């Protein structure tokens, strides 16, 4: 009776979710992204003739090795699950599920099985995708691919639950610290001991053809082979060619699922408190992510903070107060750890540049890499820093009650983000100028000119990029703020359409100042006296003119978006 109630809950939740998504397709704002997402999905995975074929003979030769590797991969995930289990909460459910189910007359075993049941719509969808993908390959059977994927995902899922509940049980018995990891470490050591006798030094990359034999010996012989056998059977299910081959894997999968289920349910681990903590924590982080992306999610985790070093003067233009607020938000939302990859890249390039004896080749590499970085930052910067109007839409009614014009709100939000990205862009150009070695072609004065020109042009370009993003938040709030429950194909399609529109707009808007700057430089070249100083002055003047024109455009846009902001109806945004 109880299980049927839980089954009813899962079935109705899934049915209502699908029904709701289908019903809202009547609205163009949901229909268009869904169509775009489906078109993309069809183009990449489903278009007849695209990518369909059989494996090349060379690849077919490696099939046993690939299966052994897949089996080893599953073993790795299984063992890792047990090692990392003490880090994880016992059972992940929503707050509503914890509050409803844990206070209902249900046994823990029933709740654990409900949790497994609740994961089935997602695992079935994954199986469906695997089946569709298999249709494109002649040697694969779509039914085996779908069923095999479904079984593998379920084995891994139940392994994770069993490991987490086992760790939870140890915690409830008072085990703490490193002792909690002993079962996982023991398991890993046992696996390592099984593989150790098979280990021989690997062949070099030049002896590429010997690698399959080396792997075959490592994975298939002796105790390691016996240990990996069940996981290899699992791994080969999606690629099975006949029912007997599939049945062996399915039998192993069902046995493992039953084993993990029995372990998880018989432990009777008190998971309620941990599940509630996790549900609340995840709920808060997801809500923050929905509002303002990664930076907001990070902010949701911060417990203590130092007063900002950015000072806010007590008097002055209102937009500067908005700018201050935006800067504080951006700087607190961005982790300094984000700088590590950039620092690593700079060190790597430094080593390459100063150890290479072919500076002209290295220079080309530096210029191309840093140019790509610059373009990527202009385009992707607004996706990385979202602590602006896009993350403020949920408090629109409050913002609109403040005595601030729409354009001043937008100014603060846009320039706050643009200052940071602009500084990063100038930093990239400066790094490139420092790393380039061919001094004959690039005089020191030229390097300074290029840095100064980029400093006058790139921050306004960043401002334009953020103005477009914030303008989208004003013109299409329901597209910018992620609606609850949105995801999958619809979200993918929406992101694609937004990225496309963004790029088109950015290109069009930058074409005017870019062309004007180019014309200025061209005219200057014709009329100005020749010489290095004149050429540098012209380039700099072109950059300044381009930057000023871009800023002018940004200001015009902000005025337009600001007026639109003032008429935006918080009750209709339907976030």
């Amino acid at each position, binding site marked *: 009776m109880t299980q049927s109630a839980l089954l009813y809950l899962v079935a109705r939740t899934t049915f209502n979710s699908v029904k709701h998504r289908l019903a809202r397709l009547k609205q163009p704002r949901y229909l268009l992204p869904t169509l775009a997402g489906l078109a993309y999905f069809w183009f990449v995975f489903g278009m007849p003739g695209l990518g369909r074929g059989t494996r090349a003979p060379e690849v077919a030769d490696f099939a046993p090795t690939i299966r052994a590797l897949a089996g080893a991969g599953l073993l790795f995930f299984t063992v890792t699950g047990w090692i990392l289990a003490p880090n994880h909460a016992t059972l992940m459910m929503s707050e509503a599920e914890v509050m409803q189910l844990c206070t209902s007359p249900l046994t823990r075993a029933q709740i654990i099985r409900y949790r497994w049941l609740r994961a089935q719509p997602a695992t079935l969808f994954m199986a469906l995708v695997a089946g569709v993908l298999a249709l494109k390959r002649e040697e694969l059977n779509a039914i085996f691919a779908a069923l095999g994927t479904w079984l593998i995902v379920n084995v891994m899922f139940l392994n994770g639950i069993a490991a987490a509940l086992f760790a939870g049980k140890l915690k409830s018995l008072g085990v703490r610290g490193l002792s909690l990891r002993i079962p996982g470490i023991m398991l890993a050591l046992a696996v390592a001991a099984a593989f150790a006798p098979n280990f021989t030094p690997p062949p070099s990359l030049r002896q590429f053809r010997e690698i399959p034999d080396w792997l075959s010996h490592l994975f298939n012989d002796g105790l390691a082979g016996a240990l990996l056998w069940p996981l290899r059977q699992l791994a080969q299910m999606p690629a099975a060619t006949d029912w007997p081959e599939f049945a062996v894997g399915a039998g192993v999968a069902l046995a493992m699922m039953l084993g993990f289920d029995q372990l998880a349910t018989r432990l009777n681990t008190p998971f309620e408190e941990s599940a509630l903590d996790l549900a609340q924590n995840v709920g*808060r982080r997801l809500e*923050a992510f929905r509002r303002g992306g990664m930076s*907001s999610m990070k*902010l*949701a985790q*911060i*417990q*203590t*903070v*130092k*007063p*900002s070093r950015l000072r*806010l*003067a*007590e*008097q*002055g233009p*209102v937009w500067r*107060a908005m700018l*201050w*607020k935006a800067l*504080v*938000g951006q700087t*607190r*939302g961005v982790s300094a750890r984000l700088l590590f990859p950039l620092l690593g890249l700079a060190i790597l390039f430094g080593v390459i540049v100063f150890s290479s004896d072919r500076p002209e080749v290295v220079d080309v590499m530096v210029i191309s890499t840093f140019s790509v970085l610059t373009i990527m930052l202009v385009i992707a910067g607004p996706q990385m820093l979202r*602590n602006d109007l896009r993350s403020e839409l*949920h*408090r*629109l*009614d*409050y*913002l*609109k*009650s*403040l*005595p*601030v*014009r729409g354009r001043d709100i937008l100014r603060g939000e846009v320039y706050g983000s643009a200052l940071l990205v602009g500084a990063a862009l100038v930093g990239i150009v400066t790094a490139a100028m420092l790393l380039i070695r061919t001094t004959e072609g690039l005089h020191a004065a030229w390097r300074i000119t290029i840095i100064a020109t980029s400093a006058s042009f790139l921050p306004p370009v960043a401002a334009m990029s953020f103005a477009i993003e914030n303008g989208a938040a004003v013109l299409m709030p329901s597209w910018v703020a992620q609606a609850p429950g949105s995801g999958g194909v619809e979200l993918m399609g929406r992101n694609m359409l937004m990225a496309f529109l963004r790029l088109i707009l950015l290109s069009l808007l930058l074409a005017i100042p870019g062309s004007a700057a180019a014309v200025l430089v061209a005219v200057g070249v014709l009329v100005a006296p020749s010489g290095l100083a004149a050429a540098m002055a012209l380039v700099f003047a072109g950059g300044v003119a381009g930057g000023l024109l871009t800023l002018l455009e940004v200001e015009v846009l902000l005025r337009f978006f600001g007026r639109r902001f*003032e*008429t935006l*109806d*918080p*009750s*209709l945004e339907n976030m």
Partner: protein
Amino acid sequence: MIEVVDLRKTYENHEAVRGLTFSVPPGEVLGLVGPNGAGKTTTMRCITGAIPPTAGRVLICGRDVQLDPVGAKQELAFIPDEPRLFEYLTVREHLAFVARLYGVKDPKPRAQALLEELELTGKEDALPNTLSRGMKQKLAIACGLIHEPRAIMFDEPLTGLDPVAIRRIKESIRKRAAAGAAIIISSHLLNLVEAIATRILLLQQGQKLLHGTIAEIQAAVPDLQGRADLEEIFMRATGYETSATASGRIVAAPETPASPPTP
């Protein structure tokens, strides 16, 4: 002074507010009540300038919210039901930021006084996500009061507060009214409204159903014979409870100027 004149707001085919006229003079606390969907939130949003009315005017201290939005909002504070706090600003930074937006001169002493009044001292450098629901609500109220507004709008101000905080906020509201602020409180907590408000405005289906002091609206419901509390009046007036003697038709109480509440 808050004046609402023939306010109308229409959404596609739905008329959320239908020709609403009322005023809140300085020193008055108006309790805005009504069942869900009565038009309270829409009315509040029109008054705060969050949405433009379809027709009609809203004046805050004589300034039209549509024609002079910045000037009108300068005199207004809106404290929403859900604290709309910036998750990346500390308590102190919130107050500094809002003070700057309203052009408050020498804001630090005022901020300190509000922190003490609302028992937020010791939390100055805390981020909102580390505060309890009640603390967040108090911070939202402090932000609303830092510029000493002459018109204040509270939307469910006591949600999530403990009894001590509720008493504090009630005192705070009365204090502001006594100092001459025009205050509107929208709430479903009828005992709160009855305890604080000097006049009641009962809305239903976007229209004014009753408007006046408790005594006036009691008198407007004939079968209650002037004895009922606000909850009883609400139930009868909105038709959720009827009596054999009820006339079934409610007549709005006459518009009479309110006397300022006693502190």
